[in-house]
């Protein structure tokens, strides 16, 4: 059977991406997760999950030191990720190769002592229909956020409320959490360069932001916001682009 596309990747890179996807989307709940995979002719493979229209986490792999992408046929598929995640977690080799054929996933990894790479072949099952990734052009850059400081602050804010407000006014970026019962917390950062957005104030769930930023190696991520209040955080690491889209929360109180 001809392979549609092949991804050779450092096991750690893939493992942390899959773990981050699961955490961001399902939080602390045990949800079944269908992964979407999109391999396009520009030799990139996108791995992503969409939750309705208010959350998407996406990793795009392209050739680089830890990654090798070969796309025979541009292909899209969606599949239930449990077995893949388990195999990736348990295999102990440094590098993993994933090959997708029409309805099967072939995982290969080298194990010392054995003559040939160990091969795990799993059928591709799915619960949901393939969905193309959300791609919008109305995001405007707000600025660079320090991933670690923001994560630390969000951890504290989560004791006040599971939701956080991101606010921009006169170049001041404010992060606020408030709850009538628990209290209030806030932090401010003055952006050096003026962002392309002027003023906004939107409410977001803390957990997806916190989990996503924790999964990034880079010190900073770029924050964007769209007119409807959707948030985008993204970062470019050598062979992996990480991106999260998060819709704003709507509350009456």
């Amino acid at each position, binding site marked *: 059977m001809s392979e549609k596309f092949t991804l050779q990747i450092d096991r750690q890179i893939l493992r942390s991406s899959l773990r981050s996807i699961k955490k961001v989307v399902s939080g602390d709940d045990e949800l079944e997760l269908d992964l979407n995979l999109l391999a396009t002719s520009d030799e990139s493979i996108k791995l992503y999950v969409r939750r309705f229209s208010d959350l998407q986490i996406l990793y795009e792999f392209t050739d680089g030191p830890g990654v090798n992408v070969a796309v025979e046929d541009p292909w899209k598929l969606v599949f239930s990720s449990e077995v893949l995640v388990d195999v990736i977690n348990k295999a102990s080799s440094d590098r993993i190769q994933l090959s997708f054929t029409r309805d099967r996933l072939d995982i290969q990894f080298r194990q010392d002592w054995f003559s040939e790479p160990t091969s795990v072949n799993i059928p591709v099952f799915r619960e949901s229909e393939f969905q193309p990734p959300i791609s919008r052009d109305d995001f405007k850059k707000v600025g660079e956020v320090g991933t670690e400081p923001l994560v630390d602050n969000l951890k504290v804010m989560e004791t006040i409320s599971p939701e956080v407000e991101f606010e921009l006014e006169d170049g001041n970026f404010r992060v606020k959490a408030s709850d009538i*019962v628990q209290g209030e917390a806030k932090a401010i950062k003055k952006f050096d360069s003026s962002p392309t957005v002027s003023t906004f104030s939107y409410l977001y769930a803390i957990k997806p932001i916190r989990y996503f930023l924790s999964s990034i190696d880079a010190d900073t991520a770029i924050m964007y916001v769209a007119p409807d209040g959707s948030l985008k955080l993204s970062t470019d690491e050598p062979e992996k682009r990480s991106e999260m889209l998060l819709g704003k929360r709507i509350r009456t109180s």
Partner: protein
Amino acid sequence: MSAELSRIYDYKDDTAFYLSQLYTLYSPQIVWPDQLKDLGYKAFPDPKFEGDDQVYKPDMVAYSDYGDVQYIDVLHIGDKSQIDDIEARISSDMAQMEAYSSISDEMLNEYLSHHGEEVDPQINELVALVTEELYSDYRETIKRESSNSDIIVWEIKSGDFSEIVKREGKHANLDLDDAIDQGATPYPNSSEVLLVTRDTDISVIKYEFSRQLITYCARENKQEFEFSEVDEMLIQKEPPILWQLTEHERRGYWQQCLHTLLNRFSLIEQSGRNTYRWKPKAFINEPRHQKSIIDDIREGLGL
């Protein structure tokens, strides 16, 4: 209801009990012989009068179309072992009532307007409602203070049916004076019209709050709620807890109660800003399970 509560704490020895008994003489909720409301009196428990940087909080205010206004305080000492000099305490409590003379007509009507009422005050009277025990043990002190501070004294006598009877002083309205001189009998199950006051032990309020909230949410299958919905959910009960306070005042109590449910008992968790949801172990519809959770709360609160 009151029997159940007296198992929990010494309800019979609490200001809320005496105030509720007194209030039944005025309450529009019940029909009962010889109520003071039949003479044209209206009353509101736990009022709050604000003005000129001062806040006055007598236990009750009553008034009639005649224009006579009574500011009433319940005089009762719960735990006598805590007090060294009871006489001094009675004297000072009664003397402090004189401050109510500073409640202006504007302040009174400002408060009454929250209830959609108003009055044209002609005369203000101070009334101390004393318990039978206090009156019999400290009669001289009470008579003296009554005379010094111009306070009319009513005594509430206990029994299967209580009786409220005037002991000192005279009312401007002769109808009222006669009626209370002869004695008025409160409706026995007074907790039906007033359960807790602003001064009731906060643990009791938390307990009642939790009980009502859990029962309501279980019945309506309401897994999640916003802070703004809480007041309405508690108003469902008869009588609504702290109905006599303004919604703004009740808010402060709900904050405290939710804080306890959230942080101390961990029965709810935050699902969003100002939004809470029952944790799985708490939210079960079986009455027996609900009851055991409510019992645990009662124990946890030391009741």
